[in-house]
């Protein structure tokens, strides 16, 4: 599989179809993977593809606007590319998507902790509720051959855990999230790693007016986390990068999932399936639910 990826990447660079390939390479530690940016055909041998390729590389597309970019994309990455196209952040002709069939990636957090269970490699939580293994958009698809590594278990109800949390009492929920948010160090890794957080100037960086407290207090942390989630409403494609990046382990995906579930229930909308679709919050329907309005 990797040979075909390398071959395709090399061909693209050689024929000048793209200026740069964004892919994966082995990190200096020899196990994990780092993003790599290749502009010379002979360097494509650095590319790799395995279950450690956790990153959503579409995050880097915004760094190279106006250049022709080839990108290696898993199913979830391709969905974020769709949202970027939908929001006119990219030109389709500028990107060449090398879609790769994916059967799940590892849970990096478990790799990090040096608990005894490390020997057992688990698939990331996000892969459990992921439906397609093929990207919904691609220019060339590299399929998996031979024995697949154990495919992630499909959850019957992707929103099971959300439903469970919803059933809790208000004060329980508040206590839970107070504890989670109080750990936030406001490093904004969740924002920076998100392929869909591309505002040139984030509301969190504004000082006049200052919308949210810079203090590492619950007040500021709560505002930040709700703002981030709201801004991704109907856009988040659940690539789970925010939760992976968060150094203090705030379950950000849980919040994203909650909104995803509401959006699906209320508007029958799923983000990142078609670039022609109108973005959720920039359109409306006359029959939108309004039972909450007096």
């Amino acid at each position, binding site marked *: 599989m990797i040979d075909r990826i390398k071959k395709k990447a090399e061909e693209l660079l050689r024929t000048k179809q793209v200026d740069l390939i964004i892919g994966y390479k082995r990190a200096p*530690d020899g196990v994990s993977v780092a993003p*790599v940016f290749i502009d010379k055909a002979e360097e494509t041998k650095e590319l790799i593809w395995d279950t450690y390729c956790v990153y959503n590389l579409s995050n880097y597309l915004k760094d190279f606007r106006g250049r022709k970019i080839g990108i290696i994309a898993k199913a979830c990455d391709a969905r974020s590319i769709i949202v970027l196209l939908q929001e006119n952040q990219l030109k389709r002709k500028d990107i060449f998507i090398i879609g790769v069939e994916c059967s799940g990636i590892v849970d990096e957090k478990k790799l990090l902790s040096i608990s005894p269970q490390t020997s057992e490699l688990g698939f990331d939580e996000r892969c459990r509720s992921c439906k397609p293994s093929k990207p919904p958009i691609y220019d060339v698809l590299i399929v998996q051959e031979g024995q697949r590594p154990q495919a992630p278990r499909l959850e019957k109800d992707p929103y099971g855990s959300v439903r469970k949390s919803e059933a809790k009492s208000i004060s329980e929920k508040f206590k839970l999230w107070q504890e989670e948010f109080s750990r936030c160090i406001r*490093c904004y890794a969740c924002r920076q790693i998100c392929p869909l957080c591309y505002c040139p100037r984030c509301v969190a*960086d504004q000082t006049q007016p200052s919308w949210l407290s810079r203090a590492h207090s619950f007040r500021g942390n709560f505002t930040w986390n709700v703002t981030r989630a709201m801004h991704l409403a109907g856009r988040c494609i659940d690539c789970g990068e925010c939760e992976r990046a968060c150094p*203090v382990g705030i379950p950000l995906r849980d919040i994203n999932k909650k909104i995803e579930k509401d959006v699906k229930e209320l508007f029958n909308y799923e983000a990142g399936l078609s670039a022609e679709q109108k973005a959720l919050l920039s359109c409306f329907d006359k029959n939108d639910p309004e039972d909450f309005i007096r």
Partner: protein
Amino acid sequence: MPSEKFFVKEDLYNKLEELSKEFEIIGPRELPNKGIFYQSLKNTRDLYLGEGFAIEPIKRFFLKPSEWIFDERFRENKNILEGIPLPADKRIIISVRPCETRGLTLLDKVFDSDYKDNFYINNRKRTIIIGLACNKPAKNCFCTSMGGSPIESRGMDVLIFDMDRGLIAEILTDRGRELFASIGEGLNEGQRRLLKEDKEKKKDLVEKKLSPPEGKELDKIFESDYWEDVSRPCIGCGICTYLCPTCHCFDLVDERRKRLRCYDSCSFPDFTLEASGVNPRPTKKERYRQRVFHKFDYFKKNFGENLCVGCGRCIRHCPVKIDIADIVDKVPGLKKE
């Protein structure tokens, strides 16, 4: 002259329980599925004495993520600026890794030298630090290359060695002696030998090595394209700086009639954005280079040491696996033998 004491974990827990009446006890605590965090321990048995490393270093108890500097009040029809009273309660931070306290000794050079930062100095004064030597450094640790080691005791009052049969505490200061006066017993000959062997063993535990630039080599490649290449994957978050035991850049903001000092990071574009709209560090290249240069060049010129203790946090927690050790090691033109 340091003295040693031997005791078992149970003794330590009991001692802490007793001390908690007088001191605030802060120590690492493992939160399931989240990691290890330094917290104020209500139950001293929550104390984590294992091999893992806390996510945030103890820096946050000295240079707080956000510190209120002064308060503006409206009294008798006048605006009055009031200083925030410095906290006086004494505290003990226990189970601290050697690299983190070494980080404090570097921060001392910044906040307790020509310029005296009262907030920082007060926090240093009211805190007793009990360290814990590393039994198993993580794969990203490179402290021995940065002048530290798993048994380094600089900046500590007591350093504890976790031996199989119990704990051996090396008492380093008078404060520490006072604290541990009524616990454990002196070492016998065998234990002393064991400790010596253990120290020898631990010294060589760290596998990752790098050779930091010695003098002014970095200056020569300030304009190199190397920085553009290595900073490309950087996403510009603040993890590496916020979790670094030595990064200390801050920002001042006015909020709710108070002035706040909070962490800031050189990886944010706003860090150097000027009011005119000009940003002298406009891209990731300049920003990442700044981080490397501050650690391995500027600080050394000012204070004679690298501003890095080799704790490996920035490598461990970087969402895109940028490895500062690898980058510094591979700086072009610095090839050593």
